[in-house]
């Protein structure tokens, strides 16, 4: 035990130096030092302190900080210390806190929450005791954050994946706009034709692992998933189901209709995507990114569904929780944490500030208020999420087991090897299947 505490200390100390060197925590530490004076000015001994952290973009940081200040103003006895990071920095920090049993009282988790199951106090307990109100939502929304019959957290918003596209470029290239059930074949032909006619990339980068592997397998059959719902094994047994995506990516890059790995690497963020700069006609988005990308592009952008394998087959798409706020087991004041989460999800004023940036709100009253004030891009987002909600789906597993990052990196590496002709699509499909399978042995 002693050794463990010591290591945790050393690791976190090393990490602090490491992170400052890497600069990824610059924003967070900067914000902390800025905030420190305002928090100490109203110093009082009987204040309850809640620690909270999240990851995200600058817009999210600004909105969340505002909501925290609203809550502190309404509850003078509560003092919320917050930290925010980019995605990678967040999880690096979280892991050191897990090791030292000092996880923030309120923390944000996405689809990889099973890794942190030991650290979560299910919010369901506070729903039963009446602290958290879920009367304005229904089971289908609550199920997005339910695991092993326990309501772990409340979703900050739901979203689904789609393809954002520029209808103007499509018509210039003479390509019909995507339909609800367009296929990967249609996608490939659209890319090739746009590239041929306009000289730009047909498509900017896709999320290869979701598009090709996790969604790709679910598109084969309603009963299949890349990771089985139990998350302790693979949910399919035919590696060749993965082959077509490898082949398609290879063909598109070779034709110049899709950016090569170097060009993909140059995309820094969603605002710098090739669709925004006009160098591509399509790109992969999560629906909650739609307003950001439309604002950055400054021209009409529409949302299409992710292409299917067969026009009459499963879409593979499903509504999922983009992330949730959780209460940590290390918290000494879990009840206060639950109260804040209730405010964060249910308060209309707070949600006007948050404005659906984390996804479509799960509370119907909040959704209606926001929808009434939405601009074009937001309306597109809301109608897109409802459209996906009408699709027939099997039990789609959107939860990531702990080993997913490794498997995903290997998958992306294999795509590059196929592009550089080091492996055939068949070999790559077989290899990633074997690799992933071995990780669960």
């Amino acid at each position, binding site marked *: 035990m002693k*050794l*463990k505490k*010591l*290591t945790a200390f*050393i690791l976190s*100390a*090393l990490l602090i130096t490491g992170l400052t*060197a*890497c*600069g990824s925590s610059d924003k967070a530490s900067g914000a902390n030092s800025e905030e420190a004076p305002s928090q100490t000015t109203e110093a009082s001994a009987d204040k309850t302190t809640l620690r909270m952290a999240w990851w995200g973009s600058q817009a999210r940081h600004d909105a969340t900080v505002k909501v925290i200040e609203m809550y502190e103003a309404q509850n003078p006895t509560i003092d919320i210390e917050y930290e925010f990071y980019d995605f*990678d920095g967040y999880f*690096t920090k979280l*892991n*050191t806190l*897990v*090791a030292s049993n000092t996880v923030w009282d309120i923390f944000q988790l996405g689809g990889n929450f099973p*890794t*942190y199951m*030991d650290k979560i106090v299910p919010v369901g307990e506070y729903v039963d005791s009446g602290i958290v109100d879920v009367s304005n939502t229904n089971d289908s929304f609550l199920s997005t954050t339910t695991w092993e019959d326990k309501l772990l957290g409340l979703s900050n918003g739901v979203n689904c994946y789609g393809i954002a596209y520029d209808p103007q470029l499509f018509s210039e290239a003479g390509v019909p706009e995507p339909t609800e059930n367009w296929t990967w074949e249609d996608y490939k032909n659209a890319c090739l034709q746009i590239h041929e006619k306009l000289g730009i990339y047909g498509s900017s980068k896709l999320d290869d692992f979701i598009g090709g592997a996790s969604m790709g397998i679910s598109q084969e059959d309603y009963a299949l998933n890349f990771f089985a719902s139990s998350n302790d094994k693979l949910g399919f047994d035919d590696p060749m189901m993965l082959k077509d995506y490898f082949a398609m990516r290879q063909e598109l890059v070779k034709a110049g209709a899709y950016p*090569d*790995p*170097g*060009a993909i*690497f*140059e995309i820094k963020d969603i605002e710098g995507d090739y669709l925004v700069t006009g160098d591509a006609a399509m790109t992969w988005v999560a629906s909650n990114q739609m307003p950001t990308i439309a604002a950055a592009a400054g021209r009409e952008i529409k949302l299409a569904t992710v292409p299917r394998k067969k026009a009459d087959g499963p879409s593979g798409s499903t509504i999922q929780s983009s992330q949730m706020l959780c209460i940590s087991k290390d918290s000494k004041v879990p009840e206060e944490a639950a109260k804040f989460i209730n405010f964060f999800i249910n308060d209309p004023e707070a949600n006007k500030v948050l404005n659906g940036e984390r996804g479509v709100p799960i509370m119907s009253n909040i959704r209606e208020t926001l929808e009434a004030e939405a601009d074009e891009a937001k309306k597109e987002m809301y109608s897109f999420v409802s459209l996906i909600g009408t699709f027939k789906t099997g039990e789609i597993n959107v939860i990531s087991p*702990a*080993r997913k*990052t*490794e498997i995903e*990196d290997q998958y992306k*590496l294999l795509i*590059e*090897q196929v592009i*550089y002709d*080091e492996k055939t699509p068949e070999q790559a499909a077989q290899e990633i299947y074997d690799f992933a399978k071995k990780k669960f042995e």
Partner: protein
Amino acid sequence: MMNDNIKKKMCLNKILHNDNTVGYVFAAPFIIGFLGFTIIPILVSLYYSFTNYNLTTSETWIGLQNYARLFQDTRFLKSVRVTLIYVLTSVPLKLIFALFIAYLLTKKSRGVTFYRSLYYVPSLIGGSIAVALVWKELFSTRGLINSLFISAGLEKVSWFGDQKMAMIPLVLMSVWQFGSSMIIFAAGLKEISPTYYEAAKIDGANKRQIFSHITLPCLSPIILYNLVMQTISAFMSFTQAFVITRGGPNDATNFYALYVYNQAFKYYDMGYASAMSWVMLIIMSLITFLIFKSSKRWVFSEAGE
């Protein structure tokens, strides 16, 4: 009673006024840092390298499994190869360049000190993220380098999209940071006694002969020092690959240190990453040992045997 107290006081005074105590007090910040940030983490990582520690759950002892795994890991083997290529290209290039500039700057002319400082600037800001980001911009598809290529009538190069090209910007960045080696070379060059040169000139030696028969041998201990230091730091290169290429494309720049970092902080495979670090230590010690061993053949010592 009294006596006892006085004795105690005397004892304390003795300790306080002891020269060694003062020394330890002044050295304490370093000793604490050295223990806390160097020795203990090193020893703990040795222990973890025999376990399956993954940060979130407690570890179990798995013996040599991590070490056995290394030899079946194709990504690991590739990262060793890539790192060796980087070391073997960047270190000699950097040293040659540093020596060349240092040699030019030994000429007595106005502004030498100014130029020497100027050439040192890249090393001052060298390892930073900011420089790496600038480097990434320079070599991007629409960056300065490609603009120059186009205006010179050459084809555009996708530096980070081509497996064979991706290493070049990284090596160039390392060579660009030749400043610290240069300063050491310059100091070494000054130390060479002018009488040797005069004697050589009287005997009618030309510039090349003077350089290869006087300058190089006299400078060889300095070359050895720079070679060892630069080789070690090249093996530990991380920032360039982490910021500029993220190891891609297709692991073509997946440096050893970067792969260790990814295993540790991306895949949370701390045990495996620790084992990898220890193998790196062994490889580096071995190479340093070989350099020292070979130095007997080429390092010239004025003092003689």
